[in-house]
């Protein structure tokens, strides 16, 4: 059964190809697109069953398809590696992708680019699954760039509006910064360790490098660079809010549930390297902690429903990074899974609301939709509670409390990280219920013009179920991950709080956020308004609203000086050198072109002269 592994990415890829090249009627397009992902999900479940039933040797299975090329030590294989970590990721990605594809068949029904949309989406799923299953970093990089390409194509899907194209380009260029760092990291790893096979790398790294070796730290930081780009973490998070220009199912699939967690996967996959490089791992934790706070504050101030969710995604991935950084590896993966469920659901339900209100994105012009869109309301509420961490019931609470506990008790944890994570819970609870109260409670501001159909509601309901049930698997989940990704606990006595205590505090903070949101945004809006009435409050609001001025800062600090330098440096020596080469080539073309006179006698003379020259060469040289 495990031999079917290669089909999981291959089927969506074949379907993407078919949709890109051939023309089908709409019904057939939807059928091909959805059934290919369904097939992938079913195969992934079969593989899971087989993996659990008869675990392969070493609890990992490698399927080598072929070797791409062979040059000395460089033998990149097209090969897939399945262990508990990649298995969990693949199942979640395939299944969530299936639900979102199903949802999209209705959501995109009226769109001209129906076939194009599904071709991109299938290609994305194929790339994402390749990324997850790759057994070497080169194939992983192929998947990495593949998802980046699809992300770009889908953000700018409605390309007739130049704004969307700009957002796509911004995403592509900003993530490219990270990708470049990652590529240099790959070169470094190959240079020092002589392989790109991930498992071999993880074996060789401890043999070649001692704890804290400079090369290990550098490699860890460079890979972290790639991860922060793809996962929209500080300082490369600025592309994700703009990426909301894409269709809502795209935001749900790529910019919430799957692609943006690729950085988390990369770090988890190479966790041996980070264990060798404590400064790099500490950097991961700091990036995560800082991002979760900054994005949490920004989410409080947004008026666009999708942008609130985007900042929330950045903040939640910050949690995952924090978990990775402190050594609570399995907690990061559990949070990836629960986040994939509830955040995908939040986006899908938001899509229902936005379509129902005729493309209205502003939460202040929504309100009172509880009665009109009951399924959307209940599923959004469940997902929101899961996001905010309603204790004991929701999946999000299990994973987040686990991270919180890890922040205090894992090997690199400290009370500082614990407090940051706690503030994050308050912020999450606050912005989540602000959103829920403004959209679904209070007075109606807009008319509902379109009711969602079954294809849109069923995925919401299934995900709502998962947003609750996904957390109860915590114990078997940790046990299953044990071989691939063990929990890295701190020495006894270094922890100043018990797990129950930490969870209780988290529950209280969640309640505090809920009450604050109720008072500020449902009970009386004037309280909220009074906060931003004074100059300081307004300035702070503006500051948070603009993502802590990051875009402004990058524009002044990087974009403008760069454009300026490029402008004034147009005709410098180096440039002259290259244009000189170009002109030299054109000159050579002109001169050589003279020989092509079209005259037969000249051509014959060329042959004769050539022979004479060659005879002279062989005789006299």
């Amino acid at each position: 059964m495990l031999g079917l592994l290669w089909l999981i990415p291959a089927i969506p890829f074949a379907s993407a190809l078919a949709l890109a090249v051939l023309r089908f009627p709409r019904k057939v397009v939807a059928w091909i697109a959805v059934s290919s992902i369904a097939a992938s999900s079913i195969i992934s479940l079969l593989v899971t069953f087989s993996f659990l039933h008869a675990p392969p040797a070493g609890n990992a299975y490698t399927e080598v398809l072929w070797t791409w090329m062979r040059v000395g030590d460089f033998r990149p294989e097209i090969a897939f590696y399945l262990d508990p970590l990649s298995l969990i990721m693949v199942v979640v990605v395939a299944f969530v992708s299936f639900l979102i594809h199903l949802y999209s068949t209705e959501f995109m029904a009226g769109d001209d680019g129906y076939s194009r949309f599904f071709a991109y989406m299938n290609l994305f799923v194929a790339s994402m699954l390749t990324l997850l299953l790759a057994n070497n970093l080169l194939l992983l990089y192929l998947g990495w760039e593949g998802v980046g390409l699809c992300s770009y194509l889908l953000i700018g899907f409605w390309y007739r509006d130049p704004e969307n194209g700009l957002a796509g380009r911004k995403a592509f260029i900003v993530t490219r910064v990270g990708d470049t760092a990652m590529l240099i990291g790959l070169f470094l790893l190959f240079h020092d360790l002589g392989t790109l096979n991930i498992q071999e790398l993880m074996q060789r790294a401890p043999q070649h490098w001692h704890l804290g070796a400079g090369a290990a730290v550098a490699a860890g930081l460079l890979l972290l660079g790639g991860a922060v780009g793809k996962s929209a973490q500080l300082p490369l998070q600025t592309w994700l809010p703009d990426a909301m220009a894409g269709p809502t199912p795209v935001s749900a699939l790529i910019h919430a549930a799957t692609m943006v967690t690729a950085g988390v996967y990369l770090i988890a996959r190479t966790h041996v390297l980070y264990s060798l490089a404590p400064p790099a791992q500490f950097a991961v934790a700091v990036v995560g902690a800082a991002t979760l706070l900054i994005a949490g504050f920004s989410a409080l101030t947004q008026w666009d429903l999708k942008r609130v969710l985007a900042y929330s995604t950045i903040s939640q991935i910050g949690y995952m990074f924090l978990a990775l950084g402190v050594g609570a590896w399995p907690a990061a993966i559990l949070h990836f899974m629960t986040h994939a469920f509830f955040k995908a659901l939040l986006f899908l339900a938001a899509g229902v609301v936005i379509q129902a209100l005729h493309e209205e994105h502003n939460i202040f012009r929504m309100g009172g939709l509880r009665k009109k869109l009951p399924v959307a309301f209940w599923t959004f509420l469940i997902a929101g509670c899961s996001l905010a961490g309603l204790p004991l019931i929701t999946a999000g609470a299990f994973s987040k409390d686990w991270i919180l506990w890890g922040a205090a008790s894992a090997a690199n944890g400290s009370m500082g990280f614990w407090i940051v994570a706690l503030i994050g819970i308050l912020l999450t609870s606050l912005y989540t219920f602000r959103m829920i109260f403004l959209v679904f409670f209070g007075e109606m501001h807009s008319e509902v013009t379109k009711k969602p159909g079954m294809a849109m509601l069923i995925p919401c309901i299934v995900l709502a179920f998962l947003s609750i049930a996904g957390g109860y698997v915590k114990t078997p989940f940790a046990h299953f991950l044990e071989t691939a990704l063990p929990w890295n606990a701190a020495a006894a006595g270094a922890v100043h709080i018990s797990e129950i205590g930490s969870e209780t505090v988290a529950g209280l903070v969640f309640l505090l956020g809920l009450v604050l949101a109720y008072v500020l945004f449902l009970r009386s809006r004037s309280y909220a308004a009074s906060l931003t009435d004074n100059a300081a409050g307004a300035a702070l609001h503006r500051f948070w609203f603009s993502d802590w001025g990051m875009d402004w800062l990058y524009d002044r600090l990087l974009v403008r000086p760069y454009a300026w330098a490029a402008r004034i440096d147009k005709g410098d020596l180096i440039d002259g050198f290259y244009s000189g080469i170009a002109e030299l080539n054109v000159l050579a073309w002109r001169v050589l072109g003279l020989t092509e006179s079209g005259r037969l006698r000249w051509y014959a003379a060329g042959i004769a002269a050539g022979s004479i020259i060659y005879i002279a060469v062989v005789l006299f040289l």
Partner: protein
Amino acid sequence: MTASDMLALLPLLLIAGSSVAVLIAAAVGRNHAVAFGLSLSGLAASFCSVFFVPATQVTALLDIDGYALFFFGLISAASFAVALLAYGYLRNRDIDKEEFYVLLLVATLGAMILAASSHFASFFLGLEVLSIALYALIAYFGDRPLPVEAGIKYLVLAASSAAFLLFGIALVYADLGTMDFARIEHILAANPNPNLTLLLPGVALVVTGIGFKLALVPFHMWTPDVYQGAPAPVTAFVATVSKGGMFALLLRYFAQSGINRFAPALLVFTIIAIASMLAGNLLALLQSNVKRILAYSSIAHMGYLMVALEVGGAIGASAVVFYLVAYFIMTLGAFAVVTVLSAEHRDADQMEDYRGLFWRRPVLALVFTAMLLSLAGIPMTAGFLGKFYILAAGAAAGSWALILILVIASTIGLFYYLRIVVILYQQPGDANQPLPLRMPAASLVLAALTVILVWLGVYPSWMLQAIHTAIGSLL
């Protein structure tokens, strides 16, 4: 000649037989489909026979070994593709069609003889069979000025270069008393200090004859005019089958006759390689005629092949053969696109014909893009791996100067390939261009070529394995 010899000659006999069959069928009654069907079945039968024909030496002239059989397969497959292209091309034009297939089959036969030749006599025989059929093929549209001009140019220059070749063969024979490649090697090995004053000029003149067919500098000047004038399917044939057969011969000659032991001969090859790589790519730089661009680019590709040829040994030979396979695929693909887009009275050879092709025929534009990127040597395509193996062979032999020039030349080449790609995706300027004719057979060829192009680019092992077996008999 025994029965097993006849069996070994089966791939050649099938081609020769089907050319006669087409001729007779045309004499009985003209029917395009019959001529086409007979040719296709002859080529297909020849291709299939390659897999079970026993490898033997047939007389002193033809060495039907694994290497020859590999090229029989490649050449018959390429001719098969050309026949499919020609069917749609000819059907829409007002001209007698049956003779085209006779000439195509005869030319294919000539190229196959070249690939199997182990003797100067069969070499010359194969060359002339190929050339004479090509004169007529190039000028097949006798009522149009360009094809006739191209045909006459090719006739005069091919004939005079053949004279150089004959004289070179005579000089070699005068010196060594044999025209058999293996015996040449034998004599040279036995006599460490041969008299070179006749032998080396003889080799240089033979190189002239070969260099003309391969369009190596400075025997290349006919290429753009002939490529431009010939009908697109014929151009595809000249670029692939004709050059491929000749290169197969050159590799065999180089590997078996032992002339690579003479430094001056190697120097000539080096000069030719460098000059061809640079001149080919530079000449194409700002050219506005797509057929001429492809002509110049083929000069450069032959130059790349010379680099690997000079390395010699198993690594050089397998690099040459792999690159030839890739070159066949991408060149056929590029000319197939030109064929498909050609209007009734004019081939689509102007850059303007391709402006905005993506918006009119997206799939065709993507296929052309793939072929051009492969010609430029972009990863995931057969062209990339082909160039990569050449570079690896050069690096193994330590010919860094040649490698450096190959890299520089490829960089220059990238420019004009991308120039075409950019044009493909620009907004179409002229909206009322006539819609090109539908050619189902040609579309089939394009689809198959694209699949093989990418297949070889990501999964080359099976082809490398086949090549490895083939060159085993050569070395």
